[in-house]
């Protein structure tokens, strides 16, 4: 069955050419070498047409996945514009994971650099919020792990000397972001079930947010005041209690700590003794 007139390409070379031919069709030399490996018959479809079927299926599938992760961005710019906008992303950013849910992490930065969308100044931050929502939705469960060694209940067992070394741990789903724009409102008014005043005033100013999944699997976007933002940022960076005590947010810590523990945003703690 082998066509002896065409030199056979190794399987690896064919697979590399196939990938290149799908994602970078402007590489005409590679595309032509791939086409030479494909059986040409009397059927109306040429090897090029046959590769096109795969290209449409692959790019369509990945675009569909991005559309599902970024529904508000799609709503804001329209599906056709979104598809055109992300086509360059698909070429620039290869998917490095078999899980399609891992793809799309850099879309916010890509949109920020995407000149035709420059006027939509808030769009990159909306994309960032949607990525964090997606990550929080699929985040691992809270609980003891290598990352979190003690439960909140164990706080009572600590000596006073140990308090300085407490490193509180946030829920694995917690993602922090800030924006110059009221992106949480933009996100909110573009939800399918939103009822209320749909206009958003960009002059309302910036916002700091924590996007996370509560213990009952509810998804939350909480707006943070200055102290909350500073405190959660410090926890996110792994700072110890004695370091946080030096920050301005320490003034609010007596209210913040029990509240964050109760709502499930702080899920446990480690003891970090830097003298050891």
């Amino acid at each position, binding site marked *: 069955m082998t066509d002896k007139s065409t030199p056979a390409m190794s*399987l690896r070379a064919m*697979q590399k050419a196939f990938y290149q031919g799908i994602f970078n069709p402007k590489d005409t030399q590679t595309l032509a070498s791939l086409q030479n490996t*494909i*059986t040409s018959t009397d059927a109306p479809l040429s090897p090029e047409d046959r590769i096109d079927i795969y290209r449409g299926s*692959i790019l369509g599938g990945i675009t569909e996945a991005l559309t599902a992760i970024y529904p508000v961005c799609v709503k804001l710019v329209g599906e056709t514009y979104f598809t055109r906008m992300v086509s360059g992303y698909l070429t620039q950013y290869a998917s490095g994971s078999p899980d399609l849910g891992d793809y799309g992490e850099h879309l916010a930065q890509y949109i920020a650099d995407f000149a035709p969308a420059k006027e939509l100044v808030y769009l990159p931050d909306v994309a960032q919020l949607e990525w964090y929502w997606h990550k929080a939705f699929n985040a691992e469960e809270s609980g003891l792990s290598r990352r979190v060694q003690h439960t909140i209940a164990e706080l009572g067992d600590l000596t006073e000397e140990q308090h300085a070394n407490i490193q509180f741990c946030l829920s694995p789903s917690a993602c922090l972001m800030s924006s110059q724009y009221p992106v949480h409102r933009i996100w909110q008014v573009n939800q399918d079930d939103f009822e209320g005043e749909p206009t958003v005033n960009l002059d309302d100013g910036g916002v700091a947010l924590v996007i996370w999944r509560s213990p009952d699997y509810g998804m939350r976007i909480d707006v943070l005041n200055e102290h909350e933002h500073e405190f959660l940022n410090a926890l996110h960076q792994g700072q110890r209690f004695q370091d946080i005590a030096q920050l301005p947010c320490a003034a609010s810590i007596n209210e913040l700590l029990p509240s964050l523990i109760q709502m499930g945003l702080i899920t446990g703690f480690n003891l970090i003794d830097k003298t050891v």
Partner: protein
Amino acid sequence: MTHSHSQNPTFSQPIIKGAGLGLRSSHYQEIFETKPDVPWFELLTDNYMADGGLPILRAEHIRQDYPVTLHGVGMSLGSTDPLNTDYLSRLKRLIERLEPSYVSDHIAWVSVEGKYTHDLLPLPYTEEALDVICRNIIQAQEFLGRRLLVENPSSYLTFTNDEMTEWEFIQSVARNTDCELLLDINNIYVSSQNHGFDPYHYLAQIPADKVKEIHLAGYEKKEHYLFDTHGYEVRPPVWDLYRAALERFGSVPTLIEWDTDVPDFQTLRAEASKADALMNQVTNKAIQEVAE
């Protein structure tokens, strides 16, 4: 290259029978509320790879009431890359959580140089490709500690350096690796029309004792080819081919796949009922023949 895996049925990995359904998120609520009489559900492995969150929680709830199978595309068994052990580790954890009756993937490749297309791409049917996929299947089975089912692909091109037919390739894969087969009847029909071979001859060449599951789906008729979209009811020629498959392989557990434009749950169940009816017809006919 033969490798043996003992896999006796266990209580935690129940034997499945009849026509199952693909589990889709839009049907969760109805399934939880009505506990429909469905013999088993197939879960798309790649939708449950995250370590937490609602999807895996829901999958565990489903598993409390039904046997499940896991069907994925991420193993990239035909790739010249080494197997992705991170993916296999995640899959192994998922298998431990859900205890599926079968775990399946495809005779295809998905990735190269660590870059994923998330689509099932065709292999040339050569000795070289056979070595690659057999090695990967054996390694994956060893890693997971269980036998895999591998599914025949639908395809839109063939390669000039093919050294054997698709059914010969599949025969060799099954023989060399001790894996079992998930036969997609729609894929056989789609490829037969796209490449001009006899789908009934294809069926006749598949080793009957290896077929443990069957897939049915609806294709889309394009101007010059059939496209495997999984977005329609099963087409009449595929039902005809399915009947022939049942006559050859017996009442193999059968799944209705419907992945795009997913209909309401009742429509899906009606498709499964057609498969069940055919299974009963073929079984009764066989019993009658024996009795006569």
